[in-house]
């Protein structure tokens, strides 16, 4: 394990972070409360972007689902496909399962810290260190070479896997960048009209982009009443800005 990998071990996963945010607000696991912590979660993901790019992919998957949930809560008129509805439910139930296992890991943590431990004897301990030469009858030189070659193949196969993750991350980041640029050029826009014909992924990335730009004060947004359409302006002074709660 490299130091780099060891560092990654210190991060709670996306579900852990999400649960932490929900529990900090003493909320139940529902779509409404997921929407409520979306902003906090995105802020956390953003802080990861600069520090631990290789674990961000897992966080972005969850972030995308959260944004979908938040979109639905803010814009009830947003039609979701059956698949999307299921995804929302899936995140909820996974979070519940995760919470259960959190309790299991408390048990393990306690036992681990207890100094309560069984010890065993090494293999054929009574032989001590006095060994003889007992080669396996059929052991050949080619067996050793085959074993090391198989190992080499496995080790090489492991390398590209790590690279793939990084490429995937870059792709998502690039997409966001593109959308951000389009925003900078356009004037006042309606979220509904922008998201109307888009695929689910595009809507999510769009929303993600809006939240980011809002936070960076590149844009201003305005929503007349709850659940009404969101209007987006470039650089104008704040009217009724939605905080990314």
């Amino acid at each position, binding site marked *: 394990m490299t130091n780099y990998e060891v560092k990654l071990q210190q991060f709670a996963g996306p579900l852990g972070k999400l649960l932490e945010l929900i529990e900090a607000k003493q909320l139940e696991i529902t779509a409404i409360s997921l929407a409520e912590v979306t902003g906090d979660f995105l802020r956390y993901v953003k802080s990861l972007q600069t520090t631990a790019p290789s674990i961000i992919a897992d966080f972005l998957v969850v972030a995308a689902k959260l944004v979908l949930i938040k979109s639905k809560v803010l814009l009830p008129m947003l039609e979701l496909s059956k698949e999307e509805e299921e995804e929302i439910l899936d995140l909820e139930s996974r979070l519940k399962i995760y919470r259960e296992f959190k309790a299991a890991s408390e048990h393990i943590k306690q036992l681990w810290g207890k100094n309560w*431990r069984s010890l065993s004897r090494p293999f054929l301990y009574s032989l001590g260190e006095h060994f003889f030469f007992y080669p396996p009858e059929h052991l050949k030189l080619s067996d050793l070479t085959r074993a090391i070659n198989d190992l080499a193949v496995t080790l090489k196969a492991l390398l590209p896997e790590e690279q793939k993750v990084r490429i995937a991350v870059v792709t998502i980041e690039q997409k966001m960048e593109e959308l951000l640029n389009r925003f900078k050029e356009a004037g006042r826009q309606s979220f509904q009209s922008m998201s109307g014909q888009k695929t689910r992924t595009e809507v999510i990335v769009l929303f993600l982009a809006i939240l980011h730009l809002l936070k960076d004060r590149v844009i201003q947004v305005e929503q007349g009443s709850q659940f009404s359409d969101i209007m987006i302006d470039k650089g104008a002074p704040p009217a009724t800005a939605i905080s990314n709660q």
Partner: protein
Amino acid sequence: MDSSKNLSAKIEALLFIYGEPLSLQKIAKTLEVSEEAVAEALQALETTLTGEDRGLFLVHDQEKVQLTTKPDFGALLETIMKEELRENLTPAALETLSIVAYAGPMTRAEIDYIRGVNSSFSLRNLSIRGLVERYPDPKRGNVYLYNPSFDLLKFLGVAKVEDLPEFERFHQLIEKLRHPEEKSVEETSKEANAPGTQ
């Protein structure tokens, strides 16, 4: 003379010599008795070992058994034998280890699903430390199954995974996950009221 008591004695001697976990099958073969007789004698041995004047303990999984010291003496023996100090578990390692302990054998994909994150580094780390064991899934080539190791059971001071706190509850939770069609009534009704469901 080859009474069941004598078989318990032989098994104790065999496990003492071997040191490592030994399968019931191999014990039966070595001692030239049936596996049923071995299982019965092991049960008797386990009962005797609970005696206050006994310092030994049996750790076992479905197929293997190992003779160890009683967990009560862990701190004492650790100091005397200058055992390597146990390293702390990182949050990721603890999370992964708990899932494997309560729900193994499991594939990495299943562990990833519960954790919502790629677990290959954690599993590799735990595997290097000898806390989880992996073996190829007999049903699928190229897929590994992860199980708690004997070293983990010994570290935690339990005789078997079933002795972990609330084992039954977590085990059933996993079974339900694997067969989601048999959802409980309670869960179904809760989901029916969830927003966004039509």
